[in-house]
């Protein structure tokens, strides 16, 4: 056991590092920039990467990649993360949407869309979730009705990351409500700037707006924008969702090191709060969990490095990290005692990082699969336990009971 690169990996790491040092943009303070300004920087960097084939690296050369191994992809990302480059705008599009287009679109469509997406000129979003279809995505209600060679679409999507700056999206809709819910779905690609598409930001409990609602009012699209057969939408969506696991990153937010620093700086009658045994036991627990997750990622990388498929251990990440973030943030606020309620970044310790993460953590426990859904997934896919009793398998969608 060790943490070393193989000779090939080490060589590739040097190649990557050398390229990054020569090409990565200089550090800029994005905190004071607007989103469009940051996006512009991100697109430029994406184009630079694409030209050197450091994006979509595992794709074939013909599609803009370099046929790299998954571990080479990991190595690139490790090295890139040491540079302060703009990130995050292209992950969903290139990680989930464009691969779906590549798998199901005709050649013409692929030729039109893949290369600009790889170069960062066009960005894609994923339009699956709806207000009444969260964990149960296949219960979605957005309708597409055939009209000659066109489809007319009405309905609403929700929790769409980046919809306001995206150019295109893949859209899952119901084309037949008379069959059981999984069988009446169809996938399309759409132009996000088309008339009939309206994007509204969602005001989150944390104050920010990282996601959008997208409303469709008589959106008209041609049948040629269909991905896969009519009624095969769920099968197409599964291809998209299979890629999701790889796109979901680690959690951000303060961790054991930050709360340890907070405790050390918090004066108590006996010295500082780090001297408190109860805090120390909690700190040990947080460390063990956080290190456990980090080391679990090393196990995943080991599998990649050995050319194997990573084991299911990678599925444990978000359950642990989201709940730990919520618990740790709350403990930090309690350390501050009455003062903990203050969120003014000029006054609260560590620029109110803990107060902010307390408001963000509930979202983390929900987005990309709730705690409950993730435990179902571990139970069913990892441990092989039976699925839930399904009362919706053979009922026509229109006859299914619904609530909100």
């Amino acid at each position, binding site marked *: 056991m060790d943490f070393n690169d193989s000779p090939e990996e080490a060589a590739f790491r040097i190649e990557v590092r050398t390229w990054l040092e020569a090409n990565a943009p200089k550090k800029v303070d994005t905190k004071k920039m607007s989103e469009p300004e940051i996006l512009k920087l991100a697109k430029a960097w994406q184009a630079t990467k694409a030209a050197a084939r450091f994006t979509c690296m595992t794709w074939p050369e013909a599609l803009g990649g370099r046929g790299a191994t998954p571990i080479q992809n990991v190595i690139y990302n490790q090295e890139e993360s040491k540079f302060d480059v703009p990130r995050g705008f292209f992950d969903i599009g290139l990680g989930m949407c464009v691969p779906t287009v590549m798998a199901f679109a005709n050649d013409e469509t692929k030729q039109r869309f893949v290369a600009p997406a790889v170069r960062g000129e066009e960005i894609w979003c994923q339009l699956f979730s709806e207000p009444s279809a969260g964990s149960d995505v296949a*219960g979605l209600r957005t309708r597409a009705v055939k009209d000659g060679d066109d489809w007319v679409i009405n309905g609403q999507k929700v929790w769409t990351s980046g919809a306001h700056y995206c150019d295109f999206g893949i859209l899952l809709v119901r084309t037949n409500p008379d069959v059981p819910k999984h069988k009446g779905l169809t996938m399309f690609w759409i132009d996000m700037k088309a008339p009939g598409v309206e994007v509204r930001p969602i005001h989150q409990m944390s104050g920010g707006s990282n996601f959008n609602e997208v409303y469709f009012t008589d959106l008209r699209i041609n049948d040629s924008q269909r991905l896969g057969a009519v009624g095969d939408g769920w099968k197409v969506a599964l291809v998209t969702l299979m890629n999701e696991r790889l796109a979901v990153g680690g959690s951000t937010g303060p961790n054991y090191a930050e709360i340890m620093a907070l405790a050390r700086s918090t004066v108590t009658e006996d010295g500082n709060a780090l001297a408190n045994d109860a805090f120390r036991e909690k700190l040990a627990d947080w460390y063990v969990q956080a290190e456990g997750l980090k080391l679990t990622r090393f196990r995943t990388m080991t599998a990649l490095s050995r050319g194997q498929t990573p084991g299911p251990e990678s599925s444990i990440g978000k359950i642990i990290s989201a709940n730990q973030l919520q618990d740790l943030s709350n403990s930090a606020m309690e350390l501050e*005692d009455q003062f903990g*309620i203050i*969120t003014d970044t000029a006054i609260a310790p560590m620029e109110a990082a803990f107060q902010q993460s307390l408001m963000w953590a509930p979202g983390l426990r929900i987005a990309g699969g709730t705690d409950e859904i993730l435990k179902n997934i571990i139970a069913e896919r990892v441990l092989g336990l039976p699925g839930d009793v399904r*009362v919706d398998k053979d009922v026509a969608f229109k006859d299914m009971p619904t609530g909100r």
Partner: protein
Amino acid sequence: MNFDYSDDQKFLKNEARKFLDGNCTSAHVRKVLDNADLSYDADLWKGVGAQGWLGAAIPEEHGGLGLGRVELCAIAEELGRACAPIPFASTVYFLAEALMLAGSDAQKAKWLPKIAAGELIGAFATSEGPGVVNAANLQANVVGGKLTGVKIPVTDGDIADLAVVLANEGGKPGLFLVELAGAGVTRETLKTLDPTRSVAKISFSGAAAERLGDAGEGFALTEAVFDRAAVLLAFEQLGGSDRCLEMAKDYAMDRYAFGRTIAGYQAIKHKLADMYVKNELARSNAYFGAWALNVGAAELPIAAAAARVASSEAYWFASKENVQTHGGMGFTWAVDCHLYYRRSRQLALVAGAPKVWKERLVQQLERRNAA
């Protein structure tokens, strides 16, 4: 055995709920939440005064209703349930209780009638920075009746007329009454996690201060006021946790996934059962606190600590798992879950964090054991 509200108390509680159902809806709470310039709901505050709640536990001789503390607990439970955006706790649980505990006859006669009449907003100012204020780090100082120092955070400090301030005088810690409209007081409203409750930083530079209670007793009196407030706050917390359980249940019963309501899935059922269990344990501990507060029992310190620990834990669990039960909707600003999530933290911190109360509880156990 008579360990529950009486019929009269239940009637009062029910009337309080009716009043708040009309006068403290989610829209009222959000008006304060969404408007940074609004520190509280002045209409609701007037209405609550008109109901007599501000003087519920103030003796009739001082203009109150002279009811018991259990009646006040019943009102607190409803205020907590409604997430009321008013300085009720600061004025009634802290200021009025401090005056009744330690005030001279003159101080009581001067201030209690004003509280009962709704003419005065109070505040209780102990904290000076992150962590618990203690004898070693207390900076606020009174010389010749003039207070100098900074208190932060002071709940309702920006709207209060009269504050009780913990400060040293001649090296001895004491509590002091300070009129905040007077000279030598600068106030700054602060951003907090719960914008439906107001918080300020108050800087004193030679503000007139009058001692409340004996010199040297500042920390002991603070603890005694906290004991009283803790019981009353526990009922607000209980009201909030009950509401979270209701919200989660109602949503789960009406939200469908995979062809049936999510209320039928064991993960949700057991989560709500856990909420129920925590809420009932909190209720029982809160009732004991109410009894001890009402009769002035020697058990008050341990009862208050147990009530505060149980209700803080119950409300935290209920408010965060209520968000979780609501899924994505629960994370939106538009749905009310976050009002309770925020308030649960405000109430858990305003009289000192639960961990401080666990320590106080164990100290009481040790004392009991030694006795």
